[in-house]
């Protein structure tokens, strides 16, 4: 179903949606655009891709898991799971790649184990993604299965047209949102939207063929020199992983506050030395070469090998764009593929 949202109504829509549940939207702030829990008065910025990804909607940076409390002389503490409350959560204005990113989490959190925290957030989340009309130099969604108007993981597609957006529902939940009074009839704009999508697809740069990546990366597994050269400029920070819509690795820590304590789950970062540091002091990934190898290979080799060929990357390019030293994941995969001729 297609509906129309005037550009001028975007804020009104956000204000209204925020009345009934959390809204996560790209907000212009301090020269940056970041996803924030929307509150009236904030400026939603859709002209630039947000620096951060919308993954907080399904996988927040900090997820409280358990609360532990000692009261009085009771020596047995009370332990209670701190599940997020049920509430429809709208992600308003992410890009299709951002919506696609969280789909990578599914097999991890809902596959062999069932993670109730993610499950609840995933069920409650509704993604309204804006179609990209022009690729950035760092965009490569089409090389990893996505596209500027990709609908994977999207509930509503917002297609920029003259004066606003054509809102196209992808899922039933999305269709329900479009019943909102701020949406008008799309009418002839539907065709305009189709043209926008066609043009956007055509504007994409030539695709990389990453089909040989899993085996080629694995072939380089023990090639220390290859990875040392590839990682030479990497500074082992976590900008790439924390910006990434598909990185799902986490850390679990207990905060002991004396009488109270709690267990939280926070994003972890495989570029950090501590990521694999073992209790014994041994570290199987002691150098940044080991760690960068893991990051690239995990996304382009190990994950697709286990999960029916799906590359664990949505091609948003944030890791390239925000890398302080310009490490380019595409170039590394290509180098592995082209290695030795």
């Amino acid at each position, binding site marked *: 179903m297609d509906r129309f949202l005037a550009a001028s109504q975007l804020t009104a829509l956000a204000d209204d949606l925020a009345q009934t549940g959390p809204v996560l939207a790209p907000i212009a702030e301090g020269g940056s655009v970041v996803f924030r829990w929307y509150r009236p008065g904030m400026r939603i910025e859709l002209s630039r891709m947000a620096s951060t990804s919308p993954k907080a909607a399904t996988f927040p940076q900090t997820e409280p898991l358990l609360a532990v409390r*000692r009261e009085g*002389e009771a020596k047995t503490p009370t332990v209670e799971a*701190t599940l997020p*409350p049920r509430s429809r959560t709208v992600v308003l204005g992410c890009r299709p790649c951002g919506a696609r990113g969280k789909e990578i989490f599914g097999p991890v959190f809902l596959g062999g184990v069932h993670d109730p925290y993610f499950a609840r957030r995933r069920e409650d989340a509704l993604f309204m993604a804006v179609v990209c009309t022009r690729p950035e130099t760092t965009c490569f969604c089409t090389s990893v299965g996505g596209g500027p108007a990709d609908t994977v993981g999207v509930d509503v597609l917002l297609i920029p047209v003259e004066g606003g957006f054509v809102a196209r529902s992808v899922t039933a939940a999305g269709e329900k949102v479009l019943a909102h009074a701020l949406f008008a009839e799309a009418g002839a704009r539907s065709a305009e939207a189709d043209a926008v999508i066609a043009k956007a697809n055509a504007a994409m740069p030539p695709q990389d063929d990453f089909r040989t990546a899993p085996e080629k990366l694995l072939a380089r597994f023990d090639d220390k020199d290859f990875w040392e050269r590839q990682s030479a400029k990497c500074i082992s920070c976590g900008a790439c992983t924390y910006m990434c819509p598909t990185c799902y690795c986490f850390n679990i820590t207990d905060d002991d*506050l*004396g009488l109270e304590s*709690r267990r939280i789950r926070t994003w972890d970062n495989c570029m950090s030395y501590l990521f694999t540091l073992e209790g014994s002091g041994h570290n199987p990934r002691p150098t940044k070469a080991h760690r960068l190898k893991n990051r690239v290979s995990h996304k382009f080799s190990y994950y697709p090998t286990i999960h029916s060929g799906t590359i664990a990357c949505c091609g948003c390019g944030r890791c390239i764009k925000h890398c302080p030293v310009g490490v380019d994941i595409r170039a590394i995969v290509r180098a592995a593929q082209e290695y030795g001729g």
Partner: protein
Amino acid sequence: MRIGVFICHCGSNIAGTVDVRAVAQAAKGFADVVYASDTMYACSEPGQEGIIQAVREHNLDGVVVASCTPRMHEPTFRRTVERAGLNRYCFEMANIREHVSWIGKDTERNTIKATELVRMAVEKLRRNRPLTPKRFDVTKRVLVVGGGVAGIQAALDCAEGGQEVVLVEREQSIGGKMAKLDKTFPTIDCSSCVLGPKMVDVAQHPKITLHTMAEVESVSGYVGNFQVTIRKKARFVDWEKCTGCGLCMEKCPSRKAPDPFNEYLCTAPTINIPFPQAIPKKAAINPETCIMKQKGKCGLCAKICPVKCIDFDQQDELVTVDVGAIVVATGYDLFDWHKYPQYGQGRYPDVITSLQYERLLSASGPTGGHIKRPSDGKEPKTVVFIQCVGSRDRSVDRPYCSGFCCMYTAKQAILTKDHIPDSQSYVFYMDIRSPGKAYDEFTRRAMEEYGAQYVRGRVAMIYPKGDQLIVRGADTLAGTQVEVAADLVVLAVGVEAARGAAVLGEKLRVVPDQYGFFVESHPKLRPVETNTAGVFLAGACQGPKDIPASVAQGSAAAAKVLALLVKDQLESDPQVSRVTPARCVGCGKCVQTCPFGAIKLVEDRFGNPKAEVVETVCQGCGICTVTCPQGAIQLEHFTDNQILAEVQALCPPRIRVNYAS
């Protein structure tokens, strides 16, 4: 952990303004606390037994006692928990007396505060680690700094106790101030007759090595293992050869050298032995006035010396000794009385200090024991003594009593009458302080038998009239002004810390008080110890003292030294820094900032530089821990985590633990 908490009533000292039962009750809810109770006197025998019982009954592995300051009873309770079978560092104290009950009367607030301090102690204890002291060998030798009567006594007692002694004296001879005195109160016995034999004992004792004209250059190390460098100043005479015959003194053509031994009342030959009983009795050249040293010719002494011991090229010599303990006996110096405008500030030669007067009285002094005033050599008939010059006077920042001036002034008044029977002495005083054995009787004798006129009052001014000095002052008892026409004025100048004491204190890490006297560990119970283990105090360096008190302290310090050096090994405090090599990047910042040289860089098996702490040298200050950005070097018992836990206990982060709606 299984922690037991004990809240002390301290009779009513704590329980008077802290609800100790409520504190104990609250403590039961704290993390890892399995037992909490209140106790009447935790430090008493039954109190300590109660702790031991509870440890056994409740299988405790950590103890918190909330009572007085840890500076008082931490060692006590550490022994208690050790007796109970725990490591003595699995113990923390909360100070709820000095820091709570004694400084506030609001019971409700005090109780809350005490509870929080207990919680803090519990949180710190939860992060304590059992620590084991290291044992190390003790160097069986003692350094005594200062060869006055206190230092001499300490040196002799230590040597008699079987320990090797290195005695360092700044002047050419040992003997200190006492050697300059003529007679001593209250017995009027001859000072050098009493002291002389002791000085000879020092020279002859096989266990004592004497370095005079020497100063402590540097000190490193720690109790049991100090390394001391001594600078022996050039004396331009080979003392191995010098026999002290004195021929050079007689022939030396340059006879205008200052004579500090005689308090500058006269000059001395440039090559000199300061006094006949000097120990060592060796000559030394003053390079400032030596014609050879200044102009490059003369050398008369070298020519006539029968043993050819003159060496004009002699240099300062540095000697290094290892010692296990150090006794500081640097004595005192006189206050600079020139700060007072009313005494002429040096314009009148016949205003002299009490110590100068001693030299005039002494048979070995510049006048051969005849009292002759400096200006014209006339025998004074009227002598005025002024007491408290630089004592008990806030206006010159000397509010303390120098203690023995009343006594020596009385003595000098008596001796004046002995020397010049037709003389009259006047003593201006504030109060007579004579609380020693036979002391007050002595001052009475000065007045009653020797006719000294005691005038209670301060002197306002001294001015010359003819060949006399008019001393104008108040007689506060009579309520009148008095004027005395004096032939000689003797100032009973107060004492202050010896010059250079502050510098030595820094080297020894012994703190001076605001007047420069060294601070003892405890004013009552540890009067000769300092806060630096292995360094002891004797004599007037700790505060004004007369001869008997100085001798007593010399012996006391020696007893402490002997008790220390009788042990073959000592235990080091295990509260020292510890390096986690995996975290250390080998930058050496800790090495750079350690004041004790306790950290060195070593190479690990991969050749990476890593910091290593020499546990016996580390003093446990923790400067390194703050210097290290990666927290690789942690001060045991005061780790980052322990202090952070205390901070968190006081300021819990405002985290909402429960997000459920």
